[in-house]
C-alpha cells in the first residue's frame, strides 16, 4: 500500500476511514481538531458516505456516537482532554452499556501548549474500566484505529484512545491497510443494555467487571505491548505511548541495555510487568503525562523494589516528557546546546491586527474604568488573550464566564460582566444564561460573535446566526439584547451602550458582531 505523510491526528482520521467507520461526531479542541477536519475534507470518506460533523459540544458529540453504535455502526468522537470532562456522563455510561464500535479519541496536552490543565485521560479510562490505547508513533496511531474497533466489537466495550500533543501534531510516513466495509444497520444484540434503569444497570456493571480479565488478556496477547529484553538488570524501564521514543533517542544504535516493557494498550499487562519486576533491581517509569502507571506499580505504601518516575520527581512531575529528561533520569550526559541570550524578549501570542475582539475590549475597558469594584469574567477562546489587555479577570472552563458572573453578582460584585465567544456560547453558555434569567441576575453578558470558532482554526459555530433568537427564547428581555459593531469608529457609541446595560438591573446581553479577521482574509483569497 502507499505511504502517506500524516500528522498523528491525520493518521487516526485515515485509520477511521479505512477501518469502516460510519460517523465521526466531534467538538474542535487543540490538539485534536485535525482528526475530524481530515475526515471532513477526505474525498474517500465522502465516497464511502462517512458522516462527519462538528457538534455543539463534546457531550452531544459522544451521545451521537452512542446512537451510531446503537444502530450497529462504527463511530468515533474526538476531543481535547478537558472535553472529556464535558462528556464525562455519556463516557462513563457508554462503558456500563458495553457499547460496541465506539472509539473515544482524546488528545492530552502535556506542557499546556494550548490548554488550561495537564489532566491525563488515562485516569478516566481506568475509572470507566474500559480498554485504552496509547500509540507510540504515527504508524501505530493508524493501525490502532483498526485494532481499537476490533477490540471494541469483540469484547463489547467502548475504547479510550489517548494521544499527547507531540503525536497529534507531528508528521511521519504511514502505510495504509486495505479498506474494510462499514457495518450494516442492525438491532442491538441485547436490547435492554441501552436502557440504564437500575435493574439493567446492576446486571451490566457486573458484566463490565466480569469482562476485565478479557481486557487484560488482550493487553498481554495483542502484540502492541512488548517485553524487550536487556542485559543490564540493574534497572527495568516501563514506557507508555511516545515515552518509548524519548528513551530510544538516547541510544543511537537503537539498543537499550535495560529490559523494557513498552506499553501502548491498557489495562496494564500484568504478566509482562511481573516478569520485569522479578528480573530487575529497580524500576523507572516513563510517561508523557501524569504518573498513571507509576502510581499503579508503586502502590500506596511504596513497599518493595524502588520505583522511580514522576511521583518521586526523578522526572519533573509537570511538563511534557522529552529525551533530555529521560537522559537525566538515566544518569546519561547529553551535548548541551547554547543558552538563550539575555537580549531575547518574550513574544507572547496576541490578538491579530484588526481583530474585532480588540475593539470590543477597548470599549469594555473604557466602561470598567468608571466602575472600580466591577469584574469581567472571561471564557475560553482567542478572546482569552484579552487578559494581556487587562480586560478580563477570570478564565476557568468552557461557559464559566456567564455562570461565574451570576454567582459573583448575587453575592455583591457590581458590575459583573461575562465575556464569551459565539462558539463557546453554543458549547456551554445557554444553560448558564437560562440560570441568569431564572434568577433575574444583575449581569451583562457580552457574546463576542465573530461568526466562527476561531481559536481552533475556523470551524462553524453552532449558535451561528441565531444568537439573538436564542437569548430571546431563553427569556432575556428583547430591549436588553443590544447589537453593536466592534470597530474603532463606533467606540463612543459602544461605550455608551455597554454603560447603559451595566446600569440596568437585570440580565443584559450585548452582541458585538464582526467576522474574525483571519476568516475574512481566507474568504477574500478565494
Amino acid at each position: 500500500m502507499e505511504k502517506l505523510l500524516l500528522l498523528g491526528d491525520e493518521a487516526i482520521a485515515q485509520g477511521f476511514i479505512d477501518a469502516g467507520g460510519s460517523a465521526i461526531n466531534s467538538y474542535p479542541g487543540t490538539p485534536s481538531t485535525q482528526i475530524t477536519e481530515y475526515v471532513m475534507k477526505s474525498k474517500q470518506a465522502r465516497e464511502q458516505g462517512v458522516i462527519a460533523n462538528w457538534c455543539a459540544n463534546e457531550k452531544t458529540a459522544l451521545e451521537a456516537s452512542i446512537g451510531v453504535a446503537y444502530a450497529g455502526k462504527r463511530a468515533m468522537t474526538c476531543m481535547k482532554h478537558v472535553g472529556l470532562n464535558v462528556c464525562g456522563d455519556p463516557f462513563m455510561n457508554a462503558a456500563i452499556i458495553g457499547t460496541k464500535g465506539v472509539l473515544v479519541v482524546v488528545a492530552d496536552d502535556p506542557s499546556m501548549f494550548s490548554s488550561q490543565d495537564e489532566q491525563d485521560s488515562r485516569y478516566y479510562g481506568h475509572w470507566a474500566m474500559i480498554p485504552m490505547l496509547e500509540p507510540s508513533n504515527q504508524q501505530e496511531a493508524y493501525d490502532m484505529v483498526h485494532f481499537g474497533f476490533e477490540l471494541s466489537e469483540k469484547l463489547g466495550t467502548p475504547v479510550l484512545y489517548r494521544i499527547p500533543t507531540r503525536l497529534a501534531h507531528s508528521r511521519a510516513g504511514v502505510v495504509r491497510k486495505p479498506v474494510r466495509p462499514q457495518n450494516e444497520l442492525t438491532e442491538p444484540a441485547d436490547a435492554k443494555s441501552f436502557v440504564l434503569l437500575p435493574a439493567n444497570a446492576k446486571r451490566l456493571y457486573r458484566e463490565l467487571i466480569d469482562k476485565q480479565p478479557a481486557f487484560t488478556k488482550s493487553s498481554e496477547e495483542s502484540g502492541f505491548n512488548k517485553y524487550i529484553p536487556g542485559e543490564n538488570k540493574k534497572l527495568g524501564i516501563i514506557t507508555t505511548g511516545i515515552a518509548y521514543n524519548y528513551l530510544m533517542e538516547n541510544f543511537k544504535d537503537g539498543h537499550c541495555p535495560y529490559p523494557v516493557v513498552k506499553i501502548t494498550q491498557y489495562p496494564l499487562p500484568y504478566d509482562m510487568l511481573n516478569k520485569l519486576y522479578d528480573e530487575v533491581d529497580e524500576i523507572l517509569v516513563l510517561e508523557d503525562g501524569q504518573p498513571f502507571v507509576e502510581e499503579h506499580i508503586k502502590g500506596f505504601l511504596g513497599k518493595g523494589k524502588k520505583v522511580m518516575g514522576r511521583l518521586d520527581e526523578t522526572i519533573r512531575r509537570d511538563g511534557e516528557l522529552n529525551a533530555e529528561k529521560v537522559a537525566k533520569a538515566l544518569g546519561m550526559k547529553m551535548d548541551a546546546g547554547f543558552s538563550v541570550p539575555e537580549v531575547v524578549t518574550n513574544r507572547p501570542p496576541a490578538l491579530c491586527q484588526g481583530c474585532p475582539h480588540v475593539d470590543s475590549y477597548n470599549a469594555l475597558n473604557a466602561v470598567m474604568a468608571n466602575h472600580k469594584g466591577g469584574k469581567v469574567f472571561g471564557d475560553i477562546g482567542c478572546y482569552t488573550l484579552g487578559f494581556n489587555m487587562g480586560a478580563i479577570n477570570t478564565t476557568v472552563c468552557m461557559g464559566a464566564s456567564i455562570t461565574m458572573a451570576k454567582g459573583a453578582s448575587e453575592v455583591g460584585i457590581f458590575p459583573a460582566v461575562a465575556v464569551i465567544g459565539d462558539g463557546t456560547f453554543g458549547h456551554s453558555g445557554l444553560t448558564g444564561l437560562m440560570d441568569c434569567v431564572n434568577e433575574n441576575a444583575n449581569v451583562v453578558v457580552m457574546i463576542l460573535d465573530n461568526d466562527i470558532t476561531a481559536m481552533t482554526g475556523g470551524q462553524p459555530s453552532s449558535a451561528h446566526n441565531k444568537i439573538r433568537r436564542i437569548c430571546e427564547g431563553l427569556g432575556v428581555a428583547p430591549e436588553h439584547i443590544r447589537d453593536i459593531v466592534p470597530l474603532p469608529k463606533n467606540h463612543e457609541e459602544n461605550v455608551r451602550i455597554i454603560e447603559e446595560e451595566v446600569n440596568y438591573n437585570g440580565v443584559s446581553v450585548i452582541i458585538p458582531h464582526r467576522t474574525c479577521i483571519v476568516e475574512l482574509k481566507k474568504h477574500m483569497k478565494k
Partner: protein
Amino acid sequence: MKKDIVLCGVGGDGIVSVAKIISDAALNMGLNLKQSEIHGMSQRGGSVFSHLRLSSEPIFADVIPEGQADIILSSEPMEALRYLPWLAKDGWIITNNEPFVNIANYPDMEKVNAELAKIKNVVSFNANEIAKVVKARSNMVLLGATVPYLGIELAKVEEAINHIFGNKGAEVVEQNMKALHAGYEQAKK
C-alpha cells in the same frame, strides 16, 4: 545521512510551511522523517517553531533534543536566538535579519546582531528585500539559502516545489523557483 532542523519565526509568517517542501523532497529520496509543529493559541502572532528530522536511519523522538540541531532556519533574527539551545556546536543558523516588531520591548538590533555574531556558522541577510526584487515570499528565499547546508540537492527541492505548487499554475511555480534560486545564490556569497 541525518539532518535535524529547527524552523522558527512568528505565527502566521509561513516559515513552518517551508518544512512541507523539505519533507516532500526527503520523502522522494526515501529518507525517514518526522516533523512536529504546534497549533492553537501559540499561533496568534507569537513565537512559533517546527522540528524537522531527516535520516536514513529510523527516527525515534518527534522533537529534536537540545544541542543536536544541524540547522536553525529562522524568518526573524531574535527568533533564531530563542532556539539556540537546540543548535549543535557546529550547527548552522540561516536567518532573515529583518526584525518583525509586534512587541513593545523588541531589543536593540545591534545587540541581536552581536549575539548572532558569536555563533560560528551564520548566514544572516535581509530576505524581505530579495523577496521584493523577485516578487515572491521571503520564506522561499530562506529555503533557498538553506539548501547548501541541507544535504539535499537543489534539483530535489525544485522537484518538490513543482510537486507542491504545480496545481496552482506555472506562474506560482516560477515565482517560487526564482525566490529559491535567489536565496541559494545569497547563501553562496
